[in-house]
């Protein structure tokens, strides 16, 4: 069964360092997302990406964040200068064409900023 794949599963980084979280969405999906979940809190939307550009972003997604689809399969989230409060689970999600279909989530990357 097709699935969304995320790497690494766990990343520990020093405050101020750049991190890149990687995702391989389901191959025929066209809409891609990043969400995050701080421990014990709700899953929060960060950004959506369609047709090689950002279609929406939340207030959390400030200038320190960027996304890229560098080739036909990968979708990345970069945090330029990490802060302690960036520590969270980051989930990549994708869905099929059509605006209102369910999204499929990856297993997440646990980012710990020390």
């Amino acid at each position, binding site marked *: 069964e097709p699935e969304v794949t*995320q790497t690494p599963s766990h990343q520990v980084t020093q405050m101020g360092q750049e991190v890149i979280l990687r995702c391989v969405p389901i191959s025929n999906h066209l809409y891609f*997302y990043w969400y995050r979940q701080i421990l014990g*809190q709700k*899953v929060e939307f960060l950004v959506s990406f369609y047709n090689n550009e950002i*279609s929406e972003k939340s207030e959390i997604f400030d200038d320190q964040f960027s996304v890229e689809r560098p080739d036909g399969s990968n979708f990345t989230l970069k945090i330029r200068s990490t802060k302690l409060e960036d520590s969270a689970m980051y989930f990549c999600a994708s869905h099929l064409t059509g*605006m*209102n279909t369910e999204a*499929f989530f990856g297993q997440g990357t646990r980012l710990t900023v020390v």
Partner: protein
Amino acid sequence: EDQVTQSPEALRLQEGESSSLNCSYTVSGLRGLFWYRQDPGKGPEFLFTLYSAGEEKEKERLKATLTKKESFLHITAPKPEDSATYLCAVRPRGTGNQFYFGTGTSLTVIP
């Protein structure tokens, strides 16, 4: 402001003891309501999509229903393997494709 509230926060059931989880929402028009299951340290796993009031979906011991203000996830004769956090997410009109998630209900089924 669009809001999603789930109750209860936590629920402990004996194996075989049926119950319901609630998701109430206040959004400016609902395009879809989605139920997900999340195991500890894992990503949300899709369960159901509901689009209009009166709609029902079933899968094994789970049944999801939708009204104009809330959705219920009914669990019939649960088993220990149903233990997980159940998340409700809505997609309001006019907000693109993003989901708004509730905080979830943590379900524990005791053998």
